[in-house]
């Protein structure tokens, strides 16, 4: 067992002790007290372009993925028969909404278009919380290319309004605390 007792005179032990010590004039005044619960600014996340290639009938792989300007996200679909299709704007938004609404199905795997989209960067934007899986990428390099972006999206899943489908007001009207 580690010794958990601490000396009172250690005024720099942690942020709250520093703040309390400053309030009592035990240490030089500083601004830590304001800092410790200050919010931080966030930036709008970048968009993503995902290229999917149909390697066999309804068997897809992610063959390219890169970031783009916010709002310019796109899915490029290279079909087995040589056809190339793109999803962007409202069409893409509908597709992402479909992914989010049926994630239980897509999450389970398979290499159909829906599942592979779900496991792509676009699926991540649609609300997939789990880390990417190399099985869906043509090679690990493609997957790693968006690591930094993913980190950023993870931190900044934000929107300007409350979720339309959200419920709130839980425990409204309760007086007193709940701790013990």
């Amino acid at each position, binding site marked *: 067992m580690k010794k958990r*007792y*601490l000396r009172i005179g250690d005024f720099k032990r942690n942020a709250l*002790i520093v703040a309390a010590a400053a309030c009592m004039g035990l240490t030089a005044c500083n601004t830590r007290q304001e800092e410790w619960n200050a919010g931080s600014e966030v930036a709008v996340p970048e968009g993503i372009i995902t290229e999917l290639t149909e390697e066999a009938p309804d068997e897809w792989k992610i063959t390219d993925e890169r970031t783009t300007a916010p709002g310019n996200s796109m899915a490029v679909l290279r079909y087995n028969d040589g056809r190339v299709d793109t999803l962007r704007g409202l069409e893409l938004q509908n597709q992402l909404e479909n992914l*989010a609404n049926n994630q239980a199905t897509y999450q389970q795997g398979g290499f159909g278009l829906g599942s592979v989209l779900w496991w792509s960067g676009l699926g991540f934007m649609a*609300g997939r919380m789990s880390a990417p899986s190399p099985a869906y990428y043509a090679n690990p390099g493609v997957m790693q290319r968006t690591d930094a972006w993913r980190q950023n999206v993870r931190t900044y899943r934000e929107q300007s309004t409350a*979720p339309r489908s959200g419920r*709130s*007001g839980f425990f409204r009207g309760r007086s007193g605390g*709940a*701790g013990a």
Partner: protein
Amino acid sequence: MSANNKITIRLEAHGGDVETAVRGLGWDWCVEEGCANYMPGEAVVLAESEADVLLQAADTLYNMLVQAVPEDLPDDFLTVLGIPENLWPLVRQSWSDDRHWHLYGRFDLAQTPEGPKLLEFNADTATSIPETAVVQWASLAAAGKHEANQYSGLYEALVEQFKSWRLLNEDLAPALLLTYLGASAEDQTNCAVLAQAAAEAGFDTHLCPIEEVSISTEGAEKGVWAQVGAEQWRQFPFLFKLLPWEQIAWEEPELLKSLELLSRTRTVMLANPAYTLLFQSKGMLAWLWKAYPYHPLLLEADLAPLSGKYIRKPYFGREGQSVEVVDKVPVVRVAGEYDAQQQVYQRWCNLSQDSKGYTYQAGVFWAGEGCAIGFRREQGIITNLSQFVPHVVA
């Protein structure tokens, strides 16, 4: 020192102005209203060996609790502990997945001549965090006792616990929402200290009353959301709730349903996890006694009244409400809102006492390990208005 089967508490008076620090931190509730005498100018003097025994007791008891829980959480077991049935899926899910991390809890212990005895374990929504981590330190610092030692390493242990929780769930964005009942400044402050520890552990944190949290289970909006700025809502994959699980289950079943769904899809991680209600239920006191009869850290407990002197406690009572002390006939009864609950009967145990007749209860925080001690005192049953007394290691 013991007399009449009780430990006698040694006190040391000290002066100094702790109020300035408390108000400076914005924790005015600590020194106002019902808490006017919350911080007396006295400290409990504790030998290092006594303090070590208390922390060691927390470690041992925690291991005993974990070992006493049957692995597959059978229905009978959950029924005996009074766990609301709509909470069973979430309790089982969290118990079987190590990524659901118990951040902290507080053991309330009686110091007796035979060593510490478990009164109860506040595993789910323990408070007294600011008092234990900061205010009791400030009270000695204000008195100029800079060379003194104190077992108040709660904050540091919490940072470690938050780090573990984050690293176990690295696939989720480290954004943590801490929520509480908006009417309680005390609960908000407890959350604020937790938030600071979490921030040090690498979380982006935000505090918000539960009334203002928005929860969606649909589509791309699925998740727990809170407003973090003007026209700025953020989704939080980590949620700390200073709300008792059984109250969520009883009073807000829809909220519980949503949280269960979001947890199952790994959209949100919840702390303290639902399985901590197994430890929080006072039915567990009887279960522990069955598993470890006559263990030196335990008091006899049963689901039926005992012979001799005992205390009757509601399963999910808090802060001393609705308890009854019986010594052949009822001798003390504390009014409260928990009368209708299942009850556990625990052998009466004399708390340690000072020369003025105050009795003392040791609150020993567990955050991965026993890490801090804080004392509450009262001339009767310890409640939420009992005085918090700092301690100093002799």
